[in-house]
């Protein structure tokens, strides 16, 4: 149990934080004369009323498995988020290229990190050499279509969406241009994290992982394949992948941590079709923010991540070794690519784990 101390502290800190924020909300709402007893309603009112300070700055966005710096205790601010929609050829598995459609040339698209009350100017540019129009529907956005209609951009055009982040949580964003399953199936999704006021509790490591299912044709040209509508409709993917590529979290691409560190994984599922049974072999999730929302469950072995949904999982790594990340619908892991690794280095504590002698 000694080893779980950090996580306990984390939990305690979050409890304090949430107590603090409830206190703040109470103050805010009582000032505004709003008398509600539902915490969510109060929360919403509070975020709307949060005033931003300073000029708009360009937000740092990152490609998986990296995430931008935590928001910490900063106040609400204005941000410019730049995303470019592109249609590119990139490797999906050993020696096989696929025509991906992306946000910022990666699958998943860039990780966006803001806090509640932040005001975001999202600039969506569609590359001039795109064949199709694209747009963005952010599940973090309150408003028609999550911004999809407002951001519809023809090839070479740019569209702008302004929104205020009202609800904290980890949200999927995706392209919603018709036909949607094809745009998502080609990789047009990513995550946007809206941290609560005061930020998420501090951890030692944070990573960005997003699952997607891919449906391919028998390669038309040598080594290049593309979206297969029939397989997509049948929901029979050839690949189920973390971060858009077989082996994206294996070998030299393994994510890493040291014994004693706390790890937080921002896990999304772009779909378009499959629900993920996310599991880390040999670890137990100390905390899971269920479906990326505000309810935290503890001591979870496997967590469901719906298509178009997410989860934040946290655990402390107590023992060195390679921990395998899978979709525990295991044919996907063993046959279709839904497998990655977390490499933990450090000293082994035989009390925690010890291979018995003959």
């Amino acid at each position, binding site marked *: 149990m000694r080893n779980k101390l950090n996580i306990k502290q984390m939990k305690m800190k979050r409890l304090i934080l949430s107590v603090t924020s409830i206190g703040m909300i109470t103050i805010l709402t009582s000032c505004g004369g709003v008398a509600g007893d539902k915490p969510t309603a109060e929360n919403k009112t509070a975020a709307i009323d949060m005033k931003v300070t300073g000029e708009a700055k360009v937000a740092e966005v990152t490609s998986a498995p990296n995430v931008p710096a935590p928001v910490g205790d900063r106040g609400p601010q204005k941000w410019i988020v730049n995303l470019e929609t592109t*249609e590119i050829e990139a490797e999906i598995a050993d020696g096989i290229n696929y025509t991906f459609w992306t946000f910022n040339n990666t699958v998943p698209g860039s990780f966006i990190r803001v806090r509640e009350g932040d005001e975001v100017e999202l600039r969506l540019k569609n590359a001039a050499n795109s064949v199709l129009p694209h747009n963005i529907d952010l599940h973090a956005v309150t408003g028609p*279509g999550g911004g999809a209609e407002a951001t519809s951009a023809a*090839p070479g055009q740019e569209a702008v969406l302004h929104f205020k982040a009202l609800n904290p949580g980890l949200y999927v964003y995706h392209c919603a241009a*018709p*036909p*949607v399953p094809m745009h998502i199936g080609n990789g047009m999704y990513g995550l946007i994290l809206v941290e609560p006021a005061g930020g998420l509790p501090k951890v030692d490591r944070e990573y960005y992982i997003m699952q997607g299912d891919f449906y391919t044709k028998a390669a038309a040209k040598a080594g290049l394949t593309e979206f297969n509508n029939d397989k997509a409709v049948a929901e029979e993917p050839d690949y189920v992948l973390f971060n858009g590529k077989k082996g994206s979290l294996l070998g030299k691409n393994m994510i890493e941590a040291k014994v004693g560190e706390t790890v937080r994984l921002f896990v999304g599922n772009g779909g378009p079709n499959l629900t993920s049974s996310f599991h880390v072999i040999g670890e137990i999730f100390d905390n899971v923010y269920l479906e990326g929302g505000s309810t935290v469950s503890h001591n979870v072995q496997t967590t469901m991540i719906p298509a178009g949904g997410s989860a934040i999982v946290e655990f402390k790594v107590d023992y060195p070794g390679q921990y395998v990340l899978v979709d525990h619908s295991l044919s996907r892991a063993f046959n279709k690519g839904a497998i990655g690794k977390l490499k933990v280095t450090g000293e082994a504590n035989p009390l925690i784990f010890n291979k018995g002698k003959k």
Partner: protein
Amino acid sequence: MKPATYILLLLSLLAQSACTKEKPHDEKQGEVVRASIGPIKTTVKMVYIPGGEYMPFYGAIDSNAVKVPAFLIDERAVTNEEFLSFVTANPQWRKSSILRIHADTNYLRDWPSDLELPKDARPDAPVCFVSWFAAKAFAKSAGKRLPTLDEWEFIAMADADTFNARSKKQYSDAIIQLYMEKGRQFKPVKQSAPNYWGVYNVFDLIWEWTDDFNSIMSIGDSRTGGENNNKDLFCAAGATSASEVNNYAAFMRFGMRTAVKAHYTIANMGFRCAKDTSNQTTQ
């Protein structure tokens, strides 16, 4: 997002935007265009399309087919050299003098000067980076008009062998294959096989402007009812038949049409002209 909203997005995102968009048919604008257009001669062959009933991709909710009257259509898209002759005869449509309301700043983007085609461009490749206004003006100057969306989609039902191939398994897939090829707009016209009607390059070179590209819901809709019905119509369209839901190629076309405005100029968007059959002998 609520499930209803989601379905709406999935199948009819375009409908929402189509409904709220202004129609480009501004009478005054049209007057200006008409008054000042210098005629040009084009030699492109026009194909007679007898017309007929067809089920619009979008509006088949109560199985009402739309009647498309007979018309003539250019067998291929307007080419770079044809557009050069148009701007030569019509200085107001050159890239240095076109009004910003008629075309965005990318108009004829790669032309080094007003009367010079892009260095690498083939004269017989389709002209791109042209706005709807410019396309309409070109058509006028050629004594023609832009095809209506229904006319265009009527032709698009055909494959090489039949006038309506929409129920064929490979129909949509084959088109998407063509759509996905980058840089296809630089190829010359008429290098691939024509469709059933003898019309070339319906899918394999460019997106094409249609006269009423952004009034999808109000044109050719046989339902009575006002604006409010449009969305319903479109939502339900997805449920009419599986083959139509799987017509991803059509979703892409409609997605494209609803993503553009009349002054936009796009790297892979051009046009071809049409004409009423009654005018057939007057030109």
